[in-house]
């Protein structure tokens, strides 16, 4: 529905006239032309078939170099595979990993806990993960998590969520052809009338997070991660 409205708005503002431009600097179309071509691009995208999900097999994974993370946002249910583009330690807790999607969205994780996104629009700009990581010690727990969320107008809002970690016990999950023994944990965070619940599956043998479903922002909702290949 949104897309249709966008098209009408844009077509209303633009009309078709060929335009061209040039220069030594940035190529710049006239404003009407830009609006028109944008409307056309949205129109053209109508009726594109949704991509079919890939059934991941061991053979497929073996052929793929490097580490692989599967990501499925709740909103669309569309599957994507992320690649690890950076890994480092800083003064914060855990190891920071930057994972990038096929359309150049970045997800920043600290020991598997989401602490930022880039390129989405409704991004999580930054977040604390200390209380969450401390809750993985098998005792449960919780605490405050300060999360900075992008507003729709380029601003950001710092929100202090009160979070509570609950042990859900041992859980054996299936990742491709492996059965992985994990501790399952559930983190419920609240700020005013807003709550979200993250779920984490941490491998018992390595302490590495293999699977999670985490909240990103009010505009984006949840995304599910599954670490297919280390």
């Amino acid at each position: 529905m949104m897309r249709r409205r966008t098209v009408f708005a844009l077509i209303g503002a633009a009309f078709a006239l060929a335009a061209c431009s040039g220069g030594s600097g940035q190529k710049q179309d006239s404003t009407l032309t830009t609006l028109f071509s944008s409307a056309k691009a949205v129109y053209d995208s109508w009726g594109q078939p949704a991509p079919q999900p890939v059934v991941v097999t061991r053979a497929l994974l073996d052929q793929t170099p490097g580490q692989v993370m599967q990501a499925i946002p709740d909103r669309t249910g569309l599957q994507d595979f992320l690649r690890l583009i950076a890994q480092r330690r800083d003064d914060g807790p855990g190891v920071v990993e930057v994972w990038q999607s096929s359309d150049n969205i970045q997800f920043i994780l600290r020991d598997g806990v989401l602490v930022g996104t880039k390129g989405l629009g409704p991004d999580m700009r930054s977040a604390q993960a200390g209380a969450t990581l401390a809750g993985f010690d098998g005792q449960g727990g919780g605490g405050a998590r300060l999360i900075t969320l992008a507003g729709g107008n380029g601003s950001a809002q710092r929100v202090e969520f009160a979070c509570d970690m609950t042990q859900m016990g041992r859980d054996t999950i299936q990742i491709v052809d492996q059965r992985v023994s994990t501790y399952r944990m559930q983190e419920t965070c609240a700020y005013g009338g807003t709550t979200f619940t993250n779920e984490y599956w941490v491998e018992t043998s390595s302490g590495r997070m293999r699977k999670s479903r985490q909240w990103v922002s009010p505009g984006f909702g949840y995304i599910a991660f599954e670490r297919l290949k280390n």
Partner: protein
Amino acid sequence: MQQVSKPTRIVTGEVRKTRVIGTVFAVVCAAQASAQDADIFDVPDRPTLNFYGSPGLVDMPTAESLPDGTFAIGVSNFGGTTRTTLTFQATPRLSASFRYVGIQDWNANGFDTYRDRSFDLRYQVLKERRTLPAVTVGLQDFAGTGIYAGEYVVATKTFEGGGRLPGRVKATAGLGWGRLASSGAIGTPFGGTRPAFDPAGTGGSPSVDQWFRGPAAPFGGVEWQINDRWGVKAEYSSDAYDAETGNGVLVRKSRLNFGTEYQLSNRIRLGAYYLYGSEFGVNVQVQLNPNAPLTPLSVRPTGPIEPRPDRAVSPEAWSTDWSESAQAPLTLRDQLTPVLAASGLKLEALQVSANRAELRFRNTRYRATSVAVGRAARAMAQVMPASVETFRLVTMHNGLAQSAVTIRRSDLEALEFDSQAADALLAVTGIGEAAPMLGNAVYSDTLYPDYAWTIGPYLEPNYFDPDEPVRFEGGIKFELNYSPAPGWELGGRLKHRLVDTFSDSTRTSNSVLPRVRTDSILYARGSDTVLDTLYVSRQWKPGNDIYARVTAGYLERMFGGVSGEVLWKPVGSRLALGVEGNYVQQRDFSGLGFQDYSVATGHASAYYEFGRGYLGQVDVGRYLAGDLGATVTLTREFKNGWRVGGFFTLTDVSSADFGEGSFDKGINLTVPLDWFLGTPGKRTLSTTIRPIQRDGGARLDVPGRLYEQVRQGHRNAVTDNWDRVWE
């Protein structure tokens, strides 16, 4: 650090469009986006509009306010009356409306169809509390002799969740004056009398002596929002429609109005009504919030910063020997240029030493200067040798150095994934003044001569001709900007008209002043091909806080000549002061010649940033018709580039000499293109709407005035958008 290649085996061979996560989600999210201002989790209660385009019932107002920053567009029609209203909620409590009305079959006062413009102001005195209602005071058509002039005090209380009724009920009661007391008056609380509507008056001035004078009458009603989509309304109106019934436009049989409304989408609501016992009406209500973009802006991220090696482990990487080489600055410049270009930034100059570097660059892509600064800093961290610790980043705009942002490289490395990355970086960042020129630097050897040209369509609307509310002209335009050296520009615009309804207008000027603006129809009747502008300008910085500009040529469609400007604007100051002087001659209606009229015009200007996006400007001086006076402009600028402003000009021209409207006033509206597109860009759509254009208080339209060029790169503008520095 570990670089891993893309898992091509999994991705290739599948029917997979890229842009999987970004685009699809951006589009879905936009549909969900609601007004996001004070708190992004708030879903503010959205009032419905009445036939006047204000929060209200059917024809009567309520005490509700729109969510802060909202634009409401209401188009209503009943009984031959069409009202088109634009309402802007300028602050959480204050809103202003501009309305254009057409009443068919008026057949009086020299009109077949009566057309008029009117302004309203509303102020919410009390916000709704648990037990107390919201209270709003409103001035309707407050500036003039229009037929809608009226004032009101109104209270509205919301009832929700109680009893057996689903949804939400809003009850409203108020007291009206003027038009809103033309039926069922109960007395004259503040005394006084009101003069009758005078169609011959010039209008336009606030009629303070009339406000809340004369009889007052109660009105009221109920709105029941049954669910998120459907609502019904019933009201008791205190409007007798004297003027309309007197002219036979409509028959009024009842004081009661009823209606039902349907929320078609997040932004659009439709209503159908039965009014005054005789007429059916419709109302289309559109509410837009600049804070909720049509497509959320997403910027393609850069790669993470590669930290420098540990100094203790590999001291050789930290050697400063490189700085001995005369070639080093050139090599670094050549390495940095493509990295910056990938982010839409252009290197202008680079000065490097063993542990400091200053980059002067131009931002061609991002509206928020902070995004450009953040990307330039990360480009420097990617390219500069490890020993370079301090980065000075100077944003340049048409040859003017705006400000110098100083960031330590180790802070950049340490804070990239900090839990409050933006705030923490701002705390250790300095934003100071930039010298006009950078000494001992290497300059880009590919930047000048710089030029850009465009051929494309244009469309120029012209509003409020009494015979035809919207006239327009459209065609093809050619624009050229050529810059041979920093600060120099040759600019021009050539237009060729293909369609036009404007020159058909018979409303040629009746002005008694020099016709500096009212001859626009004669210009429109001129040749189809028009050289709109052609000028040479030079701008430069005589000092760290001083900016200067000289422009000469065909400055605008109606005037050509010379223009000079000096602006004082310290980097961290909310206040700026400027002086502009021009000597111009009026251009011929066709061709490149000039008419006899020439004038020296100019202003002294003060600009002030009030904070939270509110900007003020006062210009005092001599206007095009030779009149002396001042213009006051108030603007609200949203972080994403929307701007809404109102202005008025008072000069020594009398109301009678000025003509209809009494003095010059209007609205400026700027909408950023990226708000629609969701991809970063700096272009905007701008328009100025005046109820009527006369010759008094008219200012020269010089291209490239300094203030906005400078302000966008100064401290307040940069820190206001600092949240985006890591984008």
